[in-house]
């Protein structure tokens, strides 16, 4: 009899939906169907059962092909690489559990690694801004129950966080938002007329790269000061009208994404968005939330912060102290300047998502990639170690985009003999201890 596992947490995006129902075969090996998940989430669960999955570590041969090796050989090779290298980039962590991160950081402390997560090419700018000016934020539950003015600025949840709008931000009925969608006013600021813009009451099409100017104009309008006729292609009348609408709301929230963090201005854009949120609290209640991408990138920031005081790009190569300086200890800069001797990628794919100059630099160094599937990083690595998928084949703690911890669940068994991230890292850690003890 197939059985249904309920309240499953989805390990795809920062929304961390925790209401999935997954039907699994009676031997607990195969996923038969997934309910309540978005298109991307279902694909992630169904992917586990696809044929052709790599189940044992692979080592690249001189002719470019890969040869299967044992876990012990892979662990030994990795531990040797880590011990030999004076400074290793240990990048990723966003798609694994907080427990695995903790073990990984222990290794990094011993071997002198730089621990960086996907925020470095994602919401890193937001974290810099939060360090500069703080953040008046709230949980997604508060958004669902209270928010009647919702702004999506430079983000496209219809594509990147598909169930965000139905679970929290636009459609659900909450305690003080009994009318659901009808009781909320939705604004979308973007340079493209995105699918999120289609469900917004007001779409503000901004010229690409003018976010700082427009946010500044919102702040100026909130104080009743004069504006130029247009700001980044947006007429001033529209800015004044929207600001008055926002002031009339009971609870407003800004969701922002890569449209602010990747464009010119970077952290200064977020700084301005946070400052606008703070200003609006003179008139009504207002809050701001970053639309975090990977499902546990927030968790990586949390674990690093409580262990070392910095949320990403933590350089532990001086062993007795942690350093953090964006532009210096961040992955892309380290790779482009060739400042690391080896790379250890886990639970992410820099090969596909880093600019090519950084990827080329990585391909020239000893590299190990730990990932359940074949991706661009595994193909340029010396060793690819497949592991069980966290959130599907093993559980673990994750943090939602609003910093709420949620436990993910194991739904099916991993292929026979496959290690989890925690098991693999623990074994690497033990091997590192042996090698360093023998030194």
């Amino acid at each position, binding site marked *: 009899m197939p059985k249904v596992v309920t309240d499953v947490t989805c390990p*795809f995006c920062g929304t961390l939906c925790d209401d999935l129902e997954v039907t699994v075969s009676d031997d607990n090996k195969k996923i038969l169907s997934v309910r309540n998940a978005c*298109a*991307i989430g279902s*694909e992630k669960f169904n*992917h586990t059962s*696809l044929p052709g999955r790599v189940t044992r570590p692979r080592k690249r041969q001189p*002719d*470019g092909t890969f040869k299967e090796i044992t876990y012990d050989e892979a662990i030994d090779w990795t531990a040797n690489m880590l011990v030999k290298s004076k400074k290793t980039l240990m990048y990723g962590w966003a798609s694994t559990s907080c427990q695995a991160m903790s073990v990984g950081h222990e290794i990094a402390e011993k071997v002198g690694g730089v621990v960086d997560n996907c925020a*470095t*090419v994602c919401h*890193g*700018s937001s974290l*810099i801004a939060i360090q500069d000016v703080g953040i008046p934020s709230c949980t997604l539950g508060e958004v669902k129950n209270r928010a009647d003015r919702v702004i999506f600025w430079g983000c*496209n949840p*219809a*594509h*990147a966080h*598909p169930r965000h709008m139905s679970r929290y931000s636009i459609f659900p009925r909450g305690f003080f938002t009994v009318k659901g969608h009808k009781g909320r006013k939705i604004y979308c600021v973007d*340079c*493209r*007329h995105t*699918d999120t813009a289609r469900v917004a009451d007001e779409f503000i099409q901004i*010229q*690409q*790269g003018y976010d700082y100017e427009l946010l500044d104009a919102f702040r100026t309008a909130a104080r009743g000061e004069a504006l130029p006729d247009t700001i980044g292609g947006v007429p001033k009348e529209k800015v004044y009208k929207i600001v008055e609408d926002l002031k009339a709301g009971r609870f407003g929230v800004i969701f922002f994404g*890569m*449209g602010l*963090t*990747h*464009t*010119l201005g*970077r*952290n200064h854009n977020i700084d301005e968005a946070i400052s606008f949120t703070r200003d609006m609290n003179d008139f009504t209640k207002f809050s701001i939330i970053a639309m975090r*991408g990977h499902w546990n990138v927030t968790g990586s920031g949390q674990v690093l912060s409580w262990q070392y005081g910095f949320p*990403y*790009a933590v350089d532990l190569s001086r062993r007795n102290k942690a350093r953090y300086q*964006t*532009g210096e200890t*961040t*992955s*892309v*800069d380290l790779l482009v300047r060739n400042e690391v001797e080896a790379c250890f990628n886990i639970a992410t794919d820099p*090969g*596909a*998502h*880093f*600019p*090519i*100059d*950084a*990827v*080329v630099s990585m*391909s*020239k160094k000893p590299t190990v990639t730990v990932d359940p*599937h*074949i*991706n*661009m990083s595994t*193909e*340029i690595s010396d060793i690819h170690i497949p592991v069980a998928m966290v959130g599907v084949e093993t559980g673990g703690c994750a943090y939602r985009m609003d910093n709420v911890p949620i436990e993910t669940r194991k739904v099916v068994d991993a292929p026979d003999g496959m290690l989890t991230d925690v098991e693999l890292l623990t074994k690497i850690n033990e091997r590192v201890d042996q090698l360093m003890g023998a030194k």
Partner: protein
Amino acid sequence: MTNKISLNMITCRSIKQGVGMEAGKTSQKYFDACSIIEMHADDFKKLGIWKNTNVKVTSSVGSVIVKAVETRQDLYPGLGHIPMGPWANQIVPAYTFSTGEPCFKGFPVTVEVAMNEPIMSAVDVVKNACGLLKK
């Protein structure tokens, strides 16, 4: 047909890119979702091409062959979009302005017709750049 136009380039997630990525980065779904450039209809006219024509997109760091398509998520003329992934990253400048964040959005590119040039697969496009592609 040797027309060349300049665009302001952005790279973003799309739901098809997300589904393709989870289906496997070597899958046809991922290839179809990411090896494209979305442009405004006016830019198609300027370039003198029909939709679904291969084009060569060049930035200050490199170039890549992708397929030009029309999009439901309208751009304004002069703005181009390649979904995030290995094709987009061939042309993304790695300079981070000391923030750690490369220029994924808002960098100048030129687009020219490359009707007969093939689009490389996800693995090949990365391996080729790294000098690991066996020809």
